[in-house]
């Protein structure tokens, strides 16, 4: 109930803000304010499900343009953390801010998505009954209201944007194929492409290389590193080899809170990390 309540007040507060009265003066593109700090800020976030403490006093900051990898054993709370950031799950306590202006706990999924947080699921979810171009078209940042979508047409600008993303994700030759017949790797790329169409400031990517072949993995690594800088990217991944190939900054989650943070080398030589996670199976990666 408290989540709903705070959502209401959040909306009220939003209305009363002096800097937002003249809406037309606000910058059209991405209202996120990162002048005074990180793009994503989680403080002391906790959530439990039926007594199970999934997230426990989690603190995390992501800087603008950063590529961050988050690793951790199963049940460390990685996916729950993404659920909290994207509005799917409300934490019991704590604060989540997007830039210094937007309290994400007061917003729901579509609002958060439209602010510029894109999310890729663990299992590739694309719209299988639509072709590749249509998938990208739906994800394109822009009008989302029912009446407007009824009358919407794909303009030149939108088409150009789609072409650009098709090029980036390397699916140009598949543009008119149904998403349902794409290979697993292609679906993953299409989903990343859909995130790009949203023009997000922050991308949350959940296990992007699960089930991928070696060459597919390399292409994905290349894609993600290229994206960082233009937008902040948070990657949750199990595959240590993959993490090592892209990561500059790694956060290790364990039992719902941060165990260690730093460069891959620093983290992987941390005895606590070795104990809970890397331990025996480091070689298998």
């Amino acid at each position, binding site marked *: 109930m408290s989540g709903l309540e705070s959502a209401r007040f959040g909306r009220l507060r939003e209305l009363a803000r002096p800097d937002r009265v003249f809406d037309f003066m606000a910058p059209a593109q991405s209202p996120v304010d990162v002048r005074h700090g990180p793009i994503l800020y989680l403080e002391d976030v906790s959530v439990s499900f039926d007594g199970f403490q999934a997230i426990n006093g989690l603190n995390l900051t992501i800087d603008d343009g950063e590529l961050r990898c988050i690793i951790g054993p199963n049940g460390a709370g990685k996916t729950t953390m993404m659920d909290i950031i994207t509005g799917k799950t409300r934490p019991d306590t704590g604060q989540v801010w997007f830039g210094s202006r937007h309290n994400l706990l007061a917003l729901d999924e579509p609002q958060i998505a439209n602010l510029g947080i894109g999310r890729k699921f663990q299992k590739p979810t694309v*719209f299988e*009954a639509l072709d590749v171009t249509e998938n990208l078209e*739906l994800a394109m940042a822009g009008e989302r209201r029912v009446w407007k979508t009824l009358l919407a047409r794909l303009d030149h600008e939108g088409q150009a944007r789609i072409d650009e993303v098709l090029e980036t994700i390397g699916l140009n030759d598949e543009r008119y194929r149904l998403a349902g017949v794409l290979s697993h790797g292609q679906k993953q790329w299409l989903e990343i492409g859909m995130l790009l169409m949203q023009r997000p400031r922050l991308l949350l990517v959940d296990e992007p290389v699960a089930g991928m072949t070696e060459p597919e993995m390399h292409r994905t690594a290349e894609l993600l590193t290229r994206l960082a800088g233009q937008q902040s990217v948070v990657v949750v991944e199990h595959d240590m080899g993959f993490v090592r190939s892209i990561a500059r900054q790694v956060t290790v989650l364990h039992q719902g809170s941060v165990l260690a943070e730093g460069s891959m080398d620093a983290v992987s030589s941390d005895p606590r990390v070795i104990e809970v996670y890397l331990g025996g199976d480091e070689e298998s990666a």
Partner: protein
Amino acid sequence: MTTQATLSGRDRSRQAFLSRSTLVTSLVLIVGMLLVLVLNALPASNALHVSGATVALLGKYFTYMLLALAVDLIWGYLGILSLGHGAFFALGGYAMGLYLNAQTSALPGWQAMMTYFPVAALMVLLAPGLLALAFGWLAFRSRVTGVYFSIITQALTFALMLAFNRNEMGLGGSTGLTRFYELMGFSLSSEGMTVALFVASGVAVLLAFWLCRAITVSRLGRVSLATRDAEARMRFIGYRVDHVKLALFVVSAMIAGVAGALYVPQVGIINPSTFAPLFSIEVVVWVALGGRATLYGALLGALVVNYLKTVLTGAMPDAWLFILGALFVLVTMVLPQGIAGVIAKWRGRRRAAVRPGQREASA
């Protein structure tokens, strides 16, 4: 765009209103309707003469086709299985029934406003539309989906059936509304009126078909297909899934209301049995049998099943429900895409034979 020329283009029927399936369906409807009119005009002695009773029956089928279209719009394209669309159909029917009663006798209280055709016509749309709006708003906002939604639509129509059975409602209780004599000053029992209602129903089917087609080929149509297949994904790319569902649910309910309004003068009665859960389930069987998410499949399914029903309830009345059930089971197991699926497969095979290189593109 050099690459585009080398790529096989998109299947035209996906985004173009004037696709082959729209044209063929419209043509079949129009030609069929004209044919019936011509054959009806032949002298009764002619072997090809179509009697007024048959025209009335076909007019009734048209209203069922309209109802099937309404169900397909939300079930086929949005994945919302309503097992209570009979309620919207019945509400439209009651609005029309009141108007017809008002032709020959003064109605009490608020019902007096139904004397005026524009008011009655508005009510045909508003009554189902507002119910769908209220019901859908509550259900979709709370993210009630799948089988849970289907069950509460059954409960909705059942509750309305109980309510309309009560004499206190002032709507004829369990007898319902009957004793219709006149529509817009013309006798309802005249042959001319039968033909006029047949034409009106046929035109309504055509218009509703075009409306649904326009919706499904628009970006909204793609939004709804995407919502049907991956609702959570849609939310995370910023769509208000509940608004999309609500909008189409209301449109669908209004089409069902119009169907009911056209049905009532043709059969001469509307009573609470139209709210019966079983009727709404039958409608779903029509659509499943015809084939979902094609629109013409729904039209075909409604026609085929109801024709069978007319023939078989005459020949062996006790067996009909068993036959209907068997048909449903059979279609679900053997033809999950229904009759439309068979047509599409047959067309696909023919196309593949003509242009072998195209097969993969349309797969």
